[in-house]
Each structure stands twice: as structure tokens, then as C-alpha cells.
């Protein structure tokens, strides 16, 4: 029995290296289209589904092969690193990443550039020396300030507020939180309760976190959420605890995931951008960059609008979502 094992093992060991071809096949694929892989933080949430629509649109309209990949579970730092290394092995033309943790993926991203793959960041930034440019739907800090402002106005400038983020290490989220704190500081009547809630980009964790903070602070007046599953999760928690409408919520979520809550007054509103547009715009700029042209300030991207460029950061237009316009927004 052991001998059978050894024989099969030896055969395998001999056969595989014999067939391995150094160098492998590179993308672009047979039709010469650039192969661009977007690696998001997690799959299976509405925001990611919306991002994918942008990638699909890019594949159809820009003559490229755009894919959206990501780990299956929230805040999976190791999963993202493995995915990046996989793309290096697949020899894709470009990798665009929204890192769960910018520091952890930096070595893998830099290796990708060394191997001739163009690296960019979108949605959340990577280290500046690891990507060519970063495309966002907002100024990461300013959006936090804006959310804070609107929540504060809803609360009449006083009350206890809880802040909820996604993963604790994603750069964009950390900056959003910084913005929220900065924005709330202007209102001496508002206190921010600790701890900072983290939902790891998963709605069920958002619900749990919200319920637990409501138990700890029964007089909580408002929630500021900076990760997309936050507002819908908090809304569910408020409905479950009978506080819907009494506690104010401002978030950073898709209109489609908070539509009913906004119409029923459970969530006051959100500030966002169209994730599909964000991905499409990034794909557009990546293709342009692969052809040797950098993003230009004020450049018009079909179907998205004018972008602003500051150094290596690109901004696409965002939108404030409230009861008044939510039905006109289809993402």
C-alpha cells in the first residue's frame, strides 16, 4: 500500500516539472484586449455587485476584459494578498485594488509592477508608492465631514452619536471616520460615544453592533455610518428595537439598499457615488494610462461626468441621497 502511494507520488513529481513551461502565456487574450482585474474588499454585498456592473460595462464598451474579484468573507486581508499574487501568476495587464489593509498588500502590489503589471487603486487607496493613481468617489475626509454635518443638523446640534465603520484598517474608511469626528467637533452639544463600531463590511455585524450600542446607550440620538452595509444594518436594528424614526441615521450606502428606510424616515439619507460609474471611470482611465496618457483634470468620462485630478488622486462626482431624489437614482 505504501509502495503504491510512493509510485503515484513519484510519477506525479516527475510529470509536473517536465510539463511546466517557464514564462507561461501572458494576457492580453487572443483578441488583444487588455486584461484588467479589479480586486475589491469582499464579494456578496450590494456595493460589490454595483461595482461589478461597472466592470461589465467596461468590458462591453471599452474593448477590454475587465473582471471583478474579491475574497468571500469580510476584511479578509490574506485573501486579498492571495488574489493579487494569483493575478501576477495569470500575467494580467493591470490590477486595480481596493485594499482591506494598504500596508499588507504593498509588497504584493510592488511585485506586480516589477513583473510588468500596471497597478492602480480605486475605492480605497493603497500606498502611494504601490499604485499609479487612485480613483475615488469622494474626498475621503470631506465625505465624513459632510455626513457629520447633515447628521448634526438633523439632531439640532446636540445628542450622543455613534460612528460605525467597515474594516478597521481600510484607508478610505479611516479617513471617512476622521472626517466625521472633525465634522462633529464643531458641535459642542454632540458627544461621540466609544467604541468605534466596525461591521467588517457585513450587514449582520452592523445589526449586532448597532443593537449592542443601543443597549449601552439607550439615549443614543444618531448614527454616522461610513461603510455601505452600515445604514441598512442600523436601520434593521432600529426597527427591531422599536427606535426607528427616533434615532437619526446618515450613511454611505447605495440608494437601492436603503430605499424603503429612507422613504419611511428610518434613515435620513446618505452620501455616495455610483459604484458602477466609479469602476467604469477607473477602467476608462486605466486603459488610457496603458496607452500612455495620464488622467486629466476636468476630463469628461462618458456616462460619468467630469473628473477632478489632484496629484495622483482622481475624483468622480458624488451625490447626496435623500427622500427627494432617491427614486431617481437607480443604483
Amino acid at each position, binding site marked *: 500500500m505504501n509502495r503504491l502511494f510512493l509510485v503515484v507520488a513519484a510519477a506525479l513529481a516527475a510529470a509536473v516539472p517536465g510539463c511546466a513551461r517557464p514564462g507561461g502565456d501572458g494576457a492580453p487574450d487572443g483578441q488583444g484586449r487588455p486584461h484588467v482585474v479589479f480586486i475589491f474588499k469582499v464579494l456578496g454585498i450590494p456595493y460589490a455587485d454595483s461595482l461589478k456592473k461597472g466592470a461589465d460595462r467596461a468590458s462591453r464598451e471599452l474593448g477590454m476584459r475587465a473582471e471583478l474579484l474579491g475574497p468571500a468573507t469580510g476584511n479578509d486581508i*490574506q485573501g486579498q494578498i492571495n488574489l493579487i499574487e494569483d493575478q501576477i*501568476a495569470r500575467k494580467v495587464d493591470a490590477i486595480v485594488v481596493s485594499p482591506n489593509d494598504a500596508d*499588507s498588500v504593498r509588497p504584493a502590489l510592488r511585485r506586480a509592477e516589477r513583473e510588468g503589471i500596471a497597478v492602480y487603486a480605486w475605492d480605497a487607496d493603497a500606498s502611494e508608492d504601490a499604485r499609479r493613481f487612485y480613483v475615488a468617489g469622494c474626498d475621503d475626509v470631506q465625505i465624513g465631514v459632510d455626513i457629520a454635518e447633515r447628521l448634526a443638523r438633523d439632531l439640532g446640534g446636540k445628542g450622543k452619536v455613534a460612528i460605525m465603520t467597515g474594516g478597521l484598517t481600510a484607508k478610505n474608511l479611516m479617513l471617512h471616520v476622521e472626517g466625521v469626528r472633525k465634522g462633529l467637533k464643531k458641535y459642542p452639544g454632540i458627544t461621540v460615544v466609544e467604541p468605534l463600531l466596525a461591521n467588517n463590511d457585513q450587514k449582520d455585524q452592523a445589526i449586532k453592533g448597532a443593537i449592542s450600542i443601543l443597549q449601552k446607550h439607550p439615549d443614543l440620538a444618531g448614527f454616522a455610518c461610513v461603510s455601505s452595509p452600515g445604514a441598512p444594518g442600523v436601520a434593521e436594528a432600529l426597527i427591531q428595537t422599536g427606535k426607528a424614526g427616533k434615532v437619526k441615521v446618515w450613511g454611505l450606502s447605495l440608494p437601492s439598499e436603503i430605499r424603503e428606510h429612507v422613504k419611511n424616515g428610518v434613515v435620513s439619507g446618505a452620501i455616495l457615488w455610483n459604484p458602477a460609474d466609479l469602476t467604469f471611470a477607473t477602467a476608462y482611465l486605466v486603459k488610457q494610462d496603458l496607452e500612455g496618457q495620464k488622467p486629466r483634470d476636468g476630463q469628461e468620462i462618458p456616462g460619468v461626468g467630469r473628473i477632478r485630478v489632484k496629484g495622483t488622486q482622481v475624483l468622480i462626482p458624488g451625490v447626496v441621497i435623500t427622500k427627494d431624489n432617491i427614486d431617481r437614482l437607480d443604483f
Partner: protein
Amino acid sequence: MKRTAGTGALQSAGSLVILAVLTVYFSATRDGFLDAGNLLSLARQYSELGLVAVGMTLVIAAGGIDISVGGTVGLTGMLLGVLVVHNGWDVLPAAVLALAVAGCVGALNGAAVAYLGMQPVLVTLATMSLTRGAAYVLTGGVSLSGYPDGFTDFAAADLGGTGIPLPAAITGAAFVAGAIVLRRTAFGRAVLACGASPEAAGLSGIRVRRVRFATYLILSLLGGAAGIMLTSRVSTSFADAGRNYEFEAITAVVLGGTSLSGGEASVLGTLAGVCTMAVLRNGLSLAGESDLTRTQMLAAALIAAVLIDNLRRRLTA
């Protein structure tokens, strides 16, 4: 029920066949699979899990189980980070201390299971929460980077220019050592005897409690080493390191022919199991399949492996 110690080879051959089939399939259908660079990169990626799988083979062979090792991987890496990045320690003494802490976790597991007679799943469930929680508490979830280049170069290095990644070589050596220990040493035979029948083992003079304790200690030490290696590879300490390693290690062990009830084990079978999982993930990834598919396929593989294990034991009883 009669069980012969150490003859999981039939199942091991089975896992090799699965591996061969998958390899042939992916080579034929995925561009870039059989690329030397791809396979070596894959080996590097699975080095840490491989180390843990070796240790897990021993624990399961002796009749136990450990679901806390993933937490130990994370804790070791974070501890290393706190010492080196926050407190300016040199890497080597910090690694030794971190490894010692990993050893303490293993000793805790081993003592509770072997000497206090507690259920392994319950004990290691508790230590899993303890270690993972401690990893998060150390920095509040914030990752640490800023290691000296020498340390991060370690995991990126090749073995003397052969192109074989250093971490993979280390794990390979661990597998060889594990296989030799299990088959050819008194300790290894004792491990299998404890798993097959603790009463008989005890009656024949084996110190069952000491042997079981040792397996938990070894696994946690290997987990600590994996934590250090992983930290070097990504040049960052992050609290979530090693997440799911216990699930994946157990899957690899069972895929490789080791019986979950102990007494029959094959370290080389575990190696085949790890390779199978690596090949599966890579094959799916090269086609752009999402991680969700892989998780489902792995779960299916684990269920299949456990069913085969059950069936085989019933047929040979």
C-alpha cells in the same frame, strides 16, 4: 472495532489520484497553470498552512483535534509586530519570545485535554477565542508594518538560487520530518497507538497523557512558526492572520487519509491534501472564479473525504 494503526495508505493513494486528476484537468483547461512561476508562487502561498497541517496530522492521529491554531498564528504575528515595530526589538529575540507564547498556548491546550481530560473541541474553542481576541486587543485591530528589510526578505527568498521559495523548502522539510517521526520513531508509534486505543496504549506502557500533550505543543509551535513566516511574507502583522487555518488544515489532513478518530495517519497524505487544496484554489482562481466557488468546493471536498473515511472504516471493521 478493529483498527490497524498507521494504514491510511489506501486513502492516501485516493487523495493522490484526486490531486493527479485535478492537476491534469487544470493543466489542460487553464492557461498559465503549469507555469513554473505559478506553481512556485503557489507553493510559497501555502507554506504557512503546510506547517500547520503537519502539526494537525499529529494531533488528530493521537485522537485529538485543535481549532485554535489559526488564532495562535495571528497572535504570534501580532506579538512579533508589537515587539519589533512598536518597541524596537531585534527580530530574532522577538521571534523567540513570540514562539514561546505560541508554545504556552499549546501547553495550555495539551494540559487541559491530556491531563484534565477536557474535550479537545471545547478547550481549543476557548483558546481560539482567547488567542484571536488577544491578537486584536494588542493593537485594537491596527496592522503593523515597518519591519527591517532583512526580515521581509527572508520569506521572499529562494533556496540558494534554485527558484524554490525558502518558506516552501522549510515546510517541505517539516513534512519530511513529520513523516519520519510518525513512521519511524517510538514517539510516532506512540502517537498512533494513543489514537487507535488509549487503553491499550496505556497498558503497553505508553505515557498517553504525555504523548497527547506533546502533539498539542508541537502543533502550536508550528503555528507560531507559520505566524512568523506569514508576517515576513506580507511584511505586516495583522490580527486576522491565520483566519480559517484550522478548517483548512483539518480538511487537508482528512483529504490525505488520516482518520478523524485517530490511529491512522499519513503525513505524506496530508501533503497531498494541502497540494490538492492549493491546486483547486489556483485552478479556480486562474479562471477568475470567485472565492465563493472555492469555499463551496472545499466544503464539498471535506464532506466527501469524511464520508469516504467513514465508509472505509465500516468496510474494514
